[in-house]
């Protein structure tokens, strides 16, 4: 028996777990996951992108370590949001792990996280379909939120993830076309096309499809994302309302 796997399962059993994922990297999962967590009152954010660890960077807490007490790992709290990340265990250092190490890290991070009264847990998943995806599946029954861009290059990769999710009975609840358009002089410009294939994919699996705009000012908020109030946050709030 593995006590940490059992404890991790128990910890998430009575909470709503929303996993923000995409087969593709660089589509904005971490920003979406963070803004989702900020818009769902009383939620906690767990960063399972073990090698990327974007969450501490987005909130300006890179290198800050979690305090570990008698009852587990204390969250790093930013803007009222409770964050948990492997970055808070290893500090500002690269993480390179074989599959069994990734599984152990996912289980321990969740098992020891002091989630307190958070009734919703947002999980920021890494790109790809590796051990973290399997590990989360062993631990919790999660609601997938799939993020892609309208680009055809993203579509192919994301479709494989969606096929997998359907096969394991975890139908995506929301399907996000991120970086979909730019507002310019009152008109919407779609630099990567309208994303018709991706949109159809979302609709075919019964997920609600959302478009999230590009907002160049978002870049100024990297390191203080909790202060961002622009159109991307507004669009993500709409996603949160539908979950």
């Amino acid at each position, binding site marked *: *028996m*593995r*006590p*940490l796997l*059992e*404890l991790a399962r*128990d910890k998430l059993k009575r909470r709503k777990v929303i996993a923000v994922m995409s087969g593709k990297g660089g589509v904005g999962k971490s920003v979406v996951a963070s803004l989702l967590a900020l818009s769902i009152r009383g939620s906690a954010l767990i960063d399972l992108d073990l090698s990327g660890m974007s969450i501490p960077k987005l909130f300006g807490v890179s290198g800050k*370590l979690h305090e*570990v*007490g*008698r*009852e*587990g*790992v204390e969250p790093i709290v930013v803007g009222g949001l409770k964050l948990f990340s492997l970055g808070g*265990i*290893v*500090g500002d*250092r*690269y*993480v*390179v*792990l*074989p599959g*069994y*190490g990734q*599984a*152990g*890290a996912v289980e*321990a*991070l969740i*098992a*020891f996280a002091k989630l307190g009264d958070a009734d919703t847990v947002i999980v920021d998943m890494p790109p790809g379909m590796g051990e973290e995806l399997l590990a989360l599946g062993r631990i919790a029954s999660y609601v997938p939120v799939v993020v892609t861009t309208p680009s055809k290059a993203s579509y192919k990769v994301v479709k494989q993830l969606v096929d997998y999710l359907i096969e394991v009975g975890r139908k995506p609840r929301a399907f996000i076309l991120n970086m979909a358009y730019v507002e310019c002089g009152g008109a919407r410009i779609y630099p990567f096309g309208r994303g018709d294939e991706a949109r159809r994919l979302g609709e075919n699996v019964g997920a609600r499809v959302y478009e999230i705009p590009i907002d160049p000012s978002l870049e100024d908020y990297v390191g203080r994302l909790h202060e961002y109030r622009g159109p991307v946050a507004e669009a993500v709030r709409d996603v949160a309302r539908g979950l």
Partner: protein
Amino acid sequence: MHEWSLALSLVQTLDRWALEHGVEIKRVVLSVPSPAQLDVSVLNEAFDALKRESRLERAKLEVKVRSPRYRCRACGYEFGQEEVDPQIRRIAGEYGEEYPLHLIPELLPTFVKCPKCGSHDIEAELSIKIEEVETT
């Protein structure tokens, strides 16, 4: 301090398991890898404090600290704890009380390199496991 959270996870997990199976727990054997550098006396003290009013109330904890065998998946070199210890000491010195392998021993390949080829691609059994449970 982490020994307490580990003991808590152990008591909570086994108490629930004992309740589901309608048994009391008499003895638990916990196997921990040596790179975790857990303090066995603190772990026992925490276990004894936390087991009160649970189905482990009369349980005795035995902690086995095992030295893993390591294998480099890049060059195939097999090695023992003695070749890892100097690297472990360096990490422990660097992090102090925040030593990451204390909390997650499976992180070892991030910090330790193969003594022959320098690869981080190291295989070992590093999980914390309940090896045996004796019930009444």
